[in-house]
């Protein structure tokens, strides 16, 4: 079992969700976060250009069984990448080992609960 955390551009959320659903991953947690990598963004306030230190991003968490890890990664890459070649700021995917997974309602554990 793995926990996949992806940081993506907020406007790509719809596409990424759809891509995940298409490969049978329908359980996701989404949160709004801010952060920075290499990308820079420029906002305009009263004619002044302002470069924010922290940019709004969207964080997606998906818990998957081992067989689903690669399809999920591919789906996220394809849907979150801006155009063919990609752009700075498209985001990152982290894959973490997951020790245990428990469904609160039934108490099921492990792969069944994912």
């Amino acid at each position: 079992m793995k926990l996949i955390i992806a940081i993506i551009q907020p406007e790509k959320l719809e596409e990424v969700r759809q891509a995940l659903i298409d490969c049978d991953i329908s359980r996701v947690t989404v949160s709004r976060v801010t952060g920075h990598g290499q990308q820079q963004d420029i906002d305009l306030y009263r004619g002044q250009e302002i470069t924010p230190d922290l940019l709004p991003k969207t964080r997606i968490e998906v818990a998957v069984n081992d067989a689903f890890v690669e399809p999920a990664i591919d789906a996220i890459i394809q849907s979150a990448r801006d155009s063919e070649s990609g752009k700075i700021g498209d985001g990152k995917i982290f894959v973490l080992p997951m020790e245990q997974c428990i469904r609160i309602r039934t108490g099921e554990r492990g792969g069944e609960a994912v």
Partner: protein
Amino acid sequence: MTGQLHSRGKSWRGIVSRMSILALLGLCVSQAWAQGTSQAPQTAMTAAVTTAPGDPIDHATTVWMLISTGLVLLMIPGLAMFYGGLVRTKNVIGTMMHSFAAMAIIGVIWALCGYAMTFGTSWHGIIGWDQSKFMLMGVDDALMDGIPELVFAMFQGKFAMITPALIAGAFAERVRFRGYCVFIALWSLLIYNPLAHWIWGGGWLTGRAIDFAGGTVIHISAGVAGLVAAIYLGPRRGYPKTAMHPNNLVMTLMGAGLLWVGWFGFNAGSSVSSGLQTAQALTVTQIAAATGACVWMLIEGFHLKKATSLGFVSGMLAGLVAITPAAGDVHPAGALALGALGAVICYGAIILKSKLGYDDTLDVFGIHGVAGIVGALGLTFFLRSEPIEGLAMATRFWYQLEGVLVSAAYSAVVTLILLVIVDKTLGLKLSVQGEMAGMDHDQHGEHGYGLLNLN
């Protein structure tokens, strides 16, 4: 000890407040006396208190019209808040800018030529024009039924501003700002000004259909234009499958509050007087709004088992729109009926919209168009007295229907032409990327709320 001090302080405050009440009373009495005497300008005293004998300005009406002008202007930021709260977070600035842009753009156009086109001398009943009214030049020191014509021009200008701003709700969240600005400028010139001229300014429909404060000219024309624009531009990406939640209903409720208050200026100001008809218009406005809100809450209570705040303001707006054409001409009982009818029929219209599947985002047609039609036709049956003596009810109904059909058809056809022109030249529909990123970032380079972004 402290208790004593406290009670002393209290009694002092009591005395002070009693004194101020007395002073206020004195002021009221002296004012009432001054007003009473101003009826007879022959007495020497009045000259000092109010106006010189033979003063052509009707100060009471002028003051009320100035207040009304301000109230109607306040409706536009109110509308910005109302619409702004209903869209998604990423579009809040863009949506509010639609209303504010209308204030500025139509504000300029109206002074330049809008007033001349609407209230100038009629050319064959089709469009008005007066060289002297261009840039409001000749209006500068003119009087009109005792009020400075500039006040009337500015009051009417507020109506011209709010009408295109209303349309913006139909295609919210998916237009380019540049295209929108050009679209409303052309819409105002080619649709609002001629329509207002036909019905109010001495055009070919003047004296036929009753439209006290803009049921046909404003609400039906904007509602139909919104419907045409919503269908032409197509739905938002993901509509209706994706849930699209209002970002801030609190702001929507505050905006709706401003609209209700502003509507007193809208309707009661449209009497262009300060007397009986003003009071009648104000009263029925209040009653219709309250009835509309009550009825909508009841329907939702039975239908959904919960009364929503958005439902409340929708019912209130339906009531206000329905009474708008009728405000000067119906009894309070008529207002009750029209408010209730407006809410019931609009509720149905919105259910029908979801069935038909077109994306009139903020229900401009569902509320303004439909309630406008309900009011314009329904007033036939609740008239205080028929303004044209001896006119049969059937003929009155036909006059009203004619007003509705003409405004709806004219608005629909010309709106479609304008949409095609603007969309093909400047581009009106937002790109897919722009729509996903949101109008705020894509069109204005700003964010509505700082809280999400920790900078």
